[in-house]
């Protein structure tokens, strides 16, 4: 852990030094590409890769803090996912694809042999490559595909990072990733951690603002109604920090089959409550493009439904519980935790 501490500090410093670059888009726009290039040069993308392949060989329990940092600083880019994917499919990456931002996209049910559709792909605006997985059919082998080969649709809402992507030529369906891995759980867990980072950030921004802004002759932070709301926000964010740490810690080799979804469900719930409070406390200034809050709240809104929403995971976990493997909560604990 001590070695990781130095690594983590280096990572935070790097991201903070880039904070003047608005990561609007990774490769379009000068600022975006410089920021990404600096991340590439730092070598952090390979942090989960094997040590003999030049990585640091970090496992999921070590990664929670890095994913949190990514969300706290760079919500626009698929940094956390790129670190995960680079570690997992290191051998499939060529010198050309190795350093590009990679995200994960979900194969939509209306795909067929000739068209591969992904709706509302996460980081559709900033990723260059996607690992396409099927969230419902684990026998379908994931593919690594370039965004450039797909038809892109930006949902007519540039402020969302989601894109609809369609690969319409079977030849372009790319290379199969042929080992089995719980991709959806992994994407959910990384996203829960990244969300936690953004949540920590919006709490910091909102606390700060509540002390600066005065109305009725005093700081708004002195109003009990505001204090109680901020306490609720802190409670929710505490829950997000706790469950993501716990889920990562219990994910030794692969993402924990139940806790990854629990983390995503709980963090998504925390996000909805918290971002409403953050905006409420800010008043009108919070929804302006210029003010930093919206960078994080917009991302949180996208992530809430990426890789399984709150109810998606709750339903899965609930089905497991009602399915009868464990008789009651006590047995659930002893069997699973």
């Amino acid at each position: 852990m001590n070695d990781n501490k130095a690594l983590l500090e280096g990572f935070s410093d790097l991201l903070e030094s880039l904070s003047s670059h608005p990561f609007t888009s990774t490769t379009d726009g000068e600022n975006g590409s410089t920021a990404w290039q600096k991340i590439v040069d730092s070598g952090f993308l390979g942090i989960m890769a094997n040590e003999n392949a030049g990585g640091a060989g970090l496992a999921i329990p070590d990664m929670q803090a890095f994913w949190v940092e990514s969300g706290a600083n760079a919500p626009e880019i698929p940094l956390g996912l790129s670190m995960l994917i680079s570690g997992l499919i290191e051998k499939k990456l060529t010198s050309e694809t190795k350093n590009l931002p990679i995200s994960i996209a979900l194969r939509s049910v209306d795909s067929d042999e000739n068209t591969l559709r992904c709706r509302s792909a996460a980081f559709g605006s900033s990723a260059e490559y996607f690992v396409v997985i099927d969230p419902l059919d684990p026998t379908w082998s994931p593919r690594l595909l370039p965004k450039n080969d797909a038809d892109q649709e930006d949902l007519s809402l540039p402020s969302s990072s989601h894109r609809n992507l369609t690969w319409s030529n079977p030849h372009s369906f790319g290379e199969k990733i042929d080992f089995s891995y719980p991709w959806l759980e992994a994407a959910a867990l990384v996203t829960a951690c990244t969300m936690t980072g953004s949540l920590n950030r919006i709490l910091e921004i909102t606390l700060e603002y509540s002390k600066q802004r005065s109305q009725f002759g005093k700081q708004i932070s002195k109003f009990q109604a505001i204090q109680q709301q901020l306490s609720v926000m802190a409670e929710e964010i505490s829950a997000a920090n706790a469950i993501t740490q716990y889920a990562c810690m219990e994910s030794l080799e692969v993402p924990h089959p139940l806790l990854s979804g629990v983390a995503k469900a709980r963090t998504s719930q925390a996000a909805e409550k918290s971002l409403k409070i953050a905006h409420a406390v800010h008043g009108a200034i919070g929804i302006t493009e210029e003010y930093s809050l919206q960078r994080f709240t917009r991302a949180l809104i996208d992530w809430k439904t990426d890789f399984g929403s709150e109810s998606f995971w709750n339903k899965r976990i609930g089905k497991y519980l009602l399915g009868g493997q464990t008789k009651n909560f006590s047995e659930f604990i002893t069997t699973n935790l």
Partner: protein
Amino acid sequence: MMTAVTNFEAKPLPKSTRALREDVQTFLRSYKPKLTEIQKAKSWMGFDREFSKALAKKGFIGLTVPKKFGGQGKDGFSRFTVIEELLLNGMPVGAHWIADRQSAPLILKYGTEEQKSFYLPKICSADAFFCIGMSEPNSGSDLASVRTRATKIDGGWSLSGQKIWTTNAHLCDFMIILVRTSGTAEDRHEGLSQFIVDLKQPGIDIRKIRDLTGDHHFNEVFFNEVFLPDNCLVGKEGAGWQQVISELAFERSGPERIYSSITLFDAWIQHSRDTALTSDAPVLAGKILTELITLRAMSLSVVAKIEEGEEPVIESAIVKDLGTELEQMIPHALAENLATNPESVVSQELLSALAYGMQISPTYSLRGGTREILRGMIARGLGLR
């Protein structure tokens, strides 16, 4: 950059607690009287002297109390494991609950050697049950305004005044009471002290108060010139406020603040499994499970902090506020779910237990400090006040 109070470092239960959990489970299987769902839902409101005695024989009370005072000398994780298992099974643990949770740690922290040797072994053997004398008719959340007073007299103190909402005062042996020993209510945190009161002393009048379900658990307690020998003072005279804050931290940090509705959840799971699964049952089951797993992780993190010698007062407030919200949500959400799906027949036992849960659950966010007070503490932790 992380706001310190929101950091709950993950600490799983050490593997070494597994054997202990199995011991508790084995004991419960052999001893367990057949409890109804309503009895289970009462859990730490239920008072069963014999059951507490049986637990004590097994060494399941006073787990963290040093061996020389009759305890087990184990760590907080062991205690967590035992009380978690008791709560999950809805056992009637109310008799020894307060003594085990807060009176023993308080005496251990502030008591004299004489007090430790006298009270702690009795607590560990379930021969001394304690209640909490904090609230008064005009001092609820504003606890520092208590007016009950102990006046110095020869060889001791004379106690007069009134406490209220005192859970199980009518069944307990001792009360740890917060009173004024100098100054007036305006002096606030100054001049308060804590005493151990033997409830068999003359001059004490205990009157029952029934709750909305018809149960009698809490009481009004009147003191009329009750004599307290000098050796009943706990800690320092005038330091009662600091001590009571520390006692409240013990009171708020345990898993009983997340599990009050757990047996209802289990009974509902059983029902939903036995009958055709309603389409909305899995989402609800998952939602509750997600909350429980998260709160349990948070609660374990608080235990770890206490083990490391910290005083996680704000963290405990966070867990209690989130925990009681879940405890209150569960009976309503389950009853709502069953009533949404009239195609399956629900046992009267489950329905009655859910009704009991809905009626009693407003107390969950009152006892041990109200929601608004906890949120005020958290706001202070956030640097807002």
